[in-house]
């Protein structure tokens, strides 16, 4: 969607405050003061074991770090993709930055305003400008409301339509017949007439040919004995008052319908805009197919003329043929209204298609961002590489392709790995300097060590496999573990360390065995957390430390606390939250036992639960 030009096209909003130069997809991601949304250090923790009883018993709540220090810049008019697997926190990020959930920490700036500290009236305004479309079009629509009501609900809550002082009103007058007609228009006519480029043009047709005759051809307003006045498609919502005067008429145009009718008209327009028919306005969501319901969901999000829409897996539940229709629609709407999208998805081919830039999340953190091209053509982070490698391509060349898979499952966000969160699965985890070991064997050593550390290594099972219930044949035990973990290739000091650790393990001392392995094999990936550097196409991975050090970049700079980070936006006096300072104490109101279900497993349940939970407080049902 690089052709998107936010400055062009008609503008549903009536005002066009943008300057239209922010949509350049290849603009550097960070530090651009033109970003519409700037997220810094966003955290969202859930707490388990935090019921009243737990507190009375002084049990320590377990925190689940669903989102842990996310930085994002979303430029005006662009589509930023947020990808990752279930439980990685992408949906929670989307909902938290819209304040549909309370953030634990961090800051979100929308058009320069601090979203997280907004009071209720500011929040109300924000909710008009920033909307969300959920994955499941059905569950996000109230089954007892007609689609017309669903779409108009937000307008009703905000007591819209209301006249916009920034929109000028002009009449496009056509006079049939020979009469001198003066047309005046009420200022609030923009509530009934769509505006374009800050001007609401009212089509006024005055038919003076039959003045004096009775009857009106097209239902237009007709003053007794005077000319017929009609408004084209606005006939139902505008009214004219005709005053005869010497040699002609004065025509005064005003809104001739209730707000309710105007909202309904707007809903009809929106239905047509999203590819449904206005005649379907009184149907219920269940009468529509999945793709049609998602169109309704989009119309609902558009109703308030937002500038920014979070699209949370908007096409994941749809069949591919319908999915393509919706993607094209989203594309068209973006160019037409200059929308900015945060597109949350797990489907990488969809992301490649629709996004200008992409941020990849793993276990609550952004691990890489870049333009779509950079990220897909030259991924840097081993996790991004693994994701891209895994996607099955719909092409004959895919046949029989064997994917190098990641080992294991995503760890639990209750107890994320130290250092780099991907290190428990990373095929490129970095051995310590001076330890020469083949990469895949090193991965195996780390796998064994991690299993020992987690305490779920079953020595009993090994003895059983060896067939030695008396646990005497330690040589057989060691052989078995070596074979199981593929540790046979180790020699020299590496071999000795493993030998030593296995000996200890055979004696049942798992923890000590893990320590022996750690002493020699401890990786920088577990001791130091890689940061997402402030550079174009950053990846949070130690593999790039050398490269960056060589380029003279200060390796230890914390991107959040570094005053340089954020460029002009930061320099202009944005507050910079300090995660170190905030890490110890957590703001009130973050306890959220209901959401304590996220366990980082690979089912869809986490994200699905998130969606349900957010039903209650999403915009539209706001009191």
């Amino acid at each position, binding site marked *: 969607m690089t*052709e998107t030009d936010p400055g062009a096209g008609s503008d549903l909003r009536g005002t066009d405050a943008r300057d239209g130069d922010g949509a350049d997809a290849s603009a550097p991601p960070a530090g651009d003061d033109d970003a519409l949304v700037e997220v810094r250090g966003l955290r969202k923790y859930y707490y388990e074991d935090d019921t009243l009883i737990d507190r009375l018993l002084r049990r320590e709540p377990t925190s689940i770090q669903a989102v842990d220090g996310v930085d994002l810049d979303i430029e005006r008019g662009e589509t930023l993709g947020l990808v990752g*697997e*279930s439980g990685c926190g992408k949906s929670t990020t989307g909902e938290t930055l819209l304040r549909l959930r309370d953030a634990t920490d961090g800051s979100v700036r929308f058009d320069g305003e601090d979203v997280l500290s907004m009071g209720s009236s500011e929040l109300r305004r924000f909710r008009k400008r920033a909307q969300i479309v959920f994955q499941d079009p059905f569950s996000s629509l109230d089954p007892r409301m007609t689609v017309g009501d669903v779409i108009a609900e937000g307008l009703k809550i905000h007591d819209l339509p209301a006249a916009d002082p920034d929109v000028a009103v002009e009449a496009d007058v056509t006079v049939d017949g020979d009469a001198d007609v003066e047309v005046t228009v009420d200022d609030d006519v923009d509530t009934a007439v769509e505006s374009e480029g800050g001007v609401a043009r009212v089509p006024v047709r005055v038919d003076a040919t039959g003045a004096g005759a009775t009857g009106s051809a097209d239902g237009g307003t007709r003053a007794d004995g005077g000319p017929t006045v009609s408004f084209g498609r606005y006939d139902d919502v505008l009214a004219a008052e005709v005053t005869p005067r010497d040699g002609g008429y004065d025509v005064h145009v005003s809104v001739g319908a209730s707000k309710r009718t105007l909202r309904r008209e707007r809903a009809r327009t929106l239905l047509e805009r999203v590819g449904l028919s206005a005649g379907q306005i009184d*149907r219920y969501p*269940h*009468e*529509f*197919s*999945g*793709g*049609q319901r998602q169109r309704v969901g989009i119309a609902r999000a558009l109703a308030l003329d937002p500038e920014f829409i979070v699209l949370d897996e908007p096409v994941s539940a749809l*069949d*591919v*043929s*319908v*999915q*393509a*229709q919706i*993607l*094209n629609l989203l*594309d068209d709407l973006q160019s037409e209204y200059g929308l900015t999208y945060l597109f949350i998805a*797990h489907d*990488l*081919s969809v992301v*490649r*298609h629709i996004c200008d830039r992409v941020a990849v999340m793993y276990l609550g953190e952004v691990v890489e961002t870049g333009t779509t091209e950079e990220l897909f053509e030259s991924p840097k982070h081993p996790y991004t590489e693994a*994701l*891209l*490698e*895994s*996607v*099955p*391509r*719909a*092409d*004959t060349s*895919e*046949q*029989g*392709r*064997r*994917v190098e*898979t*990641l080992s*294991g*499952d*995503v760890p639990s966000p209750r107890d994320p790995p130290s250092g780099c969160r991907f290190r428990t699965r990373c095929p490129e985890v970095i051995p310590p300097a001076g330890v020469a070991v083949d990469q895949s064997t090193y991965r195996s050593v780390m796998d064994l060590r991690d*299993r020992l550390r987690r305490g*779920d*290594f*079953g020595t*009993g*099972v090994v003895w*059983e496999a060896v067939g030695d219930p008396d646990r005497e044949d330690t040589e057989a035990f060691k052989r078995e573990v070596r074979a199981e973990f593929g540790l046979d290739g180790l020699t020299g000091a590496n071999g000795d360390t493993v030998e030593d650790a296995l000996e200890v393990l055979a004696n049942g001392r798992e923890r000590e065995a893990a320590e022996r392995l750690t002493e020699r094999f401890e990786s920088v990936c577990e001791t130091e957390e890689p940061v997402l550097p402030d550079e174009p196409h950053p990846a949070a991975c130690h593999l790039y430390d050398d490269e960056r050090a060589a380029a003279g970049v200060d390796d230890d700079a914390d991107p959040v606390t570094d005053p340089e980070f954020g460029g002009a936006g930061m320099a202009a006096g944005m507050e910079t939250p300090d995660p170190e300072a905030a890490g110890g104490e957590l703001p009130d109101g973050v306890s959220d036992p209901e959401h304590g279900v996220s*366990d980082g*497993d*690979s*089912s*869809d*349940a986490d994200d699905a639960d998130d969606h349900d939970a957010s039903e209650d407080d999403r915009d539209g049902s706001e009191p």
Partner: protein
Amino acid sequence: MSRDPTDAEPAGAPAGSPDDVLRVRNLTTRFFTEEGQVNAVEGVDFDVRDGEVFGIVGESGSGKSVTALSVIDLVESPGRITDGEVWYREPDLAAEFEDDVPAAVDGEFVDVRRLPEGVRRSLRGPSFSMIFQDPMSSLNPSVTVGEQIAEAVEVQRRASANPRRTRSRTQGYGLGRLLVDTLVPGRGYTSEASEARAVELLEQVGIPDPAERADEYPHQFSGGMLQRAMVAQALAGEPDVLIADEPTTALDVTIQAQILNLLRDLQAEQDTSVVMITHDLGVIARMCQRVGVMYAGQVVERGTLADVFDDPVHPYTEGLLGSIPDMDEPASRLEPIEGNVPSLLDSEMGERCYFADRCPKAMEDCLRPIPMYDAEGSDEHETRCVLAVEEYDEAAALPDGYFESEPDSASESGSADDPAAGEEVSTGD
């Protein structure tokens, strides 16, 4: 190769490749719902060969899942298989029923649908096994994972204890019990040997600490692990034919890659034939040698992977391929298929190509039931579209809006919400 649907009493097994292990013909399944008769599967034909992965691809409402259930006879009320044959190559079974049910036997092939119900059931597990999208539909939440897999192993052991006498599998055990135990494992009749085998299987599918995990309950497993457990359970029976219905759809892509690798390894090791049912053309491309495309209950195109992906004839197949964003060579705009999934209500289906209302090339000739035609490409390539035998002729094109008098969105939603028509059909858990 087109079939005459009135051909009710075919003489013996249909022709096919000598490697076929399964030949499905004219399989027809209907759901009798309050809104009327839903034609979920409509005269489906396909063959599955020894040790191959045959793909069936389709969107919701295409009938692909009901086809799977119909092949292994798990369709539940209000659904019923109303017609069709499922010829399965199993010489022992053929020898056994040659005399009793001669119509069901042709050489080494047996038409499973004509065998007594108890025998059909006893084939489930040892002969046919199924993996579902939702592991919880085939795993009992209150029985440990290990026990459930051991259960499946036990069924296989009993079956193979006397391989020549299929009927003996059901003797002294009771048909009812066998059914219950096959579908609701965990009745506690597993032996130590089968439990040990269960642990082996868990290990084989890549579950760490299999012995310990075997003692855990399904809810203690993550989604990926559970899917593996279900693969282990399905493989426990050492089936000849494994039917995998969207086996990786609920999984993340890195886990999906693990499961697909696993399925391929196990299939190669055990020489199992796999029917891979999915909406994901990428999964089809990675896994399958031959593929059938389903639409509105019918197979509309069939052939080798190259036939279907590189030289599709049916506009639906083309549309499906044009709808997926290409990750390696992104196009600026997708070319979706207009319209929605069709209604499968018998009363609304009409005598025509079922795709005609969405087809950009619909012509007058399409307003009749379309048979399978041979198409260019390999010998296998066939399609249910007139374009295989005639050029598109603009002069004969149906005018725009030709189908608009037909019930529109109301009927579309009918098919979207009707569980019988969609893919949400209960899978017999």
